């Protein structure tokens, strides 16, 4: 944020503590309402209470639901220290251990953001709050950011074409309203006005906490220590480490199981981490291609 000079603000982000999430989806609704996101249709997935499915161009918060045959605490009534259930508890007619994981997922606002790095138009930019935002008046829908995100967050919004849409004239006239990419802005407009993002405001359990990233990281460490002291089963922080493959998330999490259980990558790396070497490979390949074709001229014209 140093390029903002005097206008720079402290880095803002989310700490999403999934241990207190109750799966109410107030965050999803608040986000849709505030950001005027179109509906994605109603589809029954059969995946617990999750009919949203994933983060997309039109869903910038997504609550994951995982029903597990694991105890919530490793010292629980029906559990042994290694996390498996005690046989005598089952034989005694007790209920099988069960926990219901819920996690409100969101754009990670990476310190090293793949989407921002690869954007060829400069539409994606880093704000004075250290967040990553798409300028929708500049995005031309090239789609490079979509596979460049290690989390599968950013996506292109495709509007269904109507029969009356002239297939060729419309894009040229610029009246087709979408085809651009969309993702969480960390409510850039609300931040500008001194408000917290809509999802955090609506969260009834403080599972979504908004604040300065440095302060949130401390809060997360304390929360983790508390859950560990209470023998919770599998608590861990995800994305709080500034030395990880994306330089730490601006929006990080406290999870109760492996990241992939929630549909998150276990060891995300920003693609551009490899780019200096990749450019060298590309230049070398170009030079050898040149030399190879030159060699083809050695045998004369015939």
């Amino acid at each position, binding site marked *: 944020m140093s390029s903002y000079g005097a206008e720079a603000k402290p880095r803002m982000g989310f700490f999403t503590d999934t241990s207190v999430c109750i799966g109410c989806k107030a965050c999803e609704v608040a986000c849709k309402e505030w950001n005027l996101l179109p509906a994605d249709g109603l589809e029954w997935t059969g995946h617990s209470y999750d009919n949203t499915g994933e983060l997309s161009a039109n869903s910038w918060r997504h609550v994951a639901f995982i029903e597990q045959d694991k105890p919530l605490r490793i010292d629980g009534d029906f559990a042994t220290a290694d996390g498996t259930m005690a046989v005598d508890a089952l034989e005694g007619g007790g209920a099988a251990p069960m926990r219901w994981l819920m996690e409100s997922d969101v754009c990670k606002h990476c310190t090293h953001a793949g989407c921002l790095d690869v954007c060829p138009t400069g539409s994606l930019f880093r704000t004075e709050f250290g967040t990553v935002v798409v300028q929708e008046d500049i995005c031309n829908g090239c789609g*490079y950011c979509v596979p460049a995100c290690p989390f599968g967050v950013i996506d292109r919004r495709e509007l269904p074409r109507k029969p009356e849409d002239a297939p060729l004239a419309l894009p040229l006239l610029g009246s*087709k309203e979408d085809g651009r990419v969309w993702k969480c802005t960390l409510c850039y407009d609300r931040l500008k006005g001194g408000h917290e993002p809509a999802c955090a405001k609506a969260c009834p359990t403080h599972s979504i906490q908004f604040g300065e990233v440095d302060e949130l990281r401390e809060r997360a460490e304390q929360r983790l220590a508390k859950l560990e002291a209470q023998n919770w089963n599998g608590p861990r922080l995800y994305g709080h480490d500034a030395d990880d493959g994306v330089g730490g998330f601006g929006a990080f999490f406290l999870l109760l199981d492996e990241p992939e259980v929630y549909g998150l990558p276990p060891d995300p790396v920003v693609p551009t981490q490899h780019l200096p070497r990749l450019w060298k490979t*590309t230049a070398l390949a170009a030079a050898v291609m040149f030399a190879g074709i030159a060699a083809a001229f050695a045998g004369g014209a015939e």
Partner: protein
Amino acid sequence: MTADSYYGRPIVNEPVWKPEVAFYLFTGGIAGGSAVLHGLAKLAGNERLARSTLWIGAAAEAVCPPLLISDLGRPERFLNMLRVFKVTSPMSVGSWILIVSSGASTTAAALERLRLLGPLQALTEGVWFLSGPPLATYTGALLANTAIPVWSEARDELPWIFGASATACAGAAAAIATPTWCAGPARRAAIGGVVAELGLVHAMEKKLGFVGEVYEQGEAGEYAKVSKALGIAGAVLLAARGRRSRAAAAAGGALILGSSLALRWSVFRAGFQSARDPKYTVIPQKKRAAIRRAESHPASAPD
């Protein structure tokens, strides 16, 4: 291999690119290879080969921008590609390479047609000559610089493969369009390109291991096989009969062009298949994290 996942849903997004992008990888390859063939033919005094590679390259390159513009979600904003130059974005770098290269080839072709031979023509041909190899190989960086496992993990091979394939298809196109008595360099480039491409693709599949299994499955697998078969057939025909028979040269060249197109399609589709199954994202990442943990805490290393 299996891995935990969220109801089997993908983790990384499939690309939203349309088939136009795969065709661009092909036409851009022809253009990039033709630029080099053209420049070297000029230097070698092979005017006949220089002329045919100029027409082929200019035509292939003229198709590139419309293909890419058609792929955009907002085609009317294509000029926004030239708002900035970003070395962190292979697409940005590539847009600039393409604008320079296609501008040069179109101008050179027009000057040739109008018989305006002079310093301006030499300049445009020189610019085209130099922009050819980067145009052919940057597309490897474009795909590799993503979170798609089968593309990202092939970052040491893709630029080489696209360079070899560009050499093969530019040589093949020129061998079709040029009389045999002056098409020797084109035939040798085509054959050498195919051989290099086959070896590099094999090396890539071997190195990718488990992540590379998408090259044995679905559309990527089918087109990988088609590409290899057509490439071998074309190269053998070109090597055996291409020097004596124009018809054999044309047939061999066509087979190699087909092989090159099939290769692009195979690599393109492999990315989609790789993104669709979360195990390709999860398993290598878990392995990587475990190795890193073992290196930083040797005592607690898992066996």
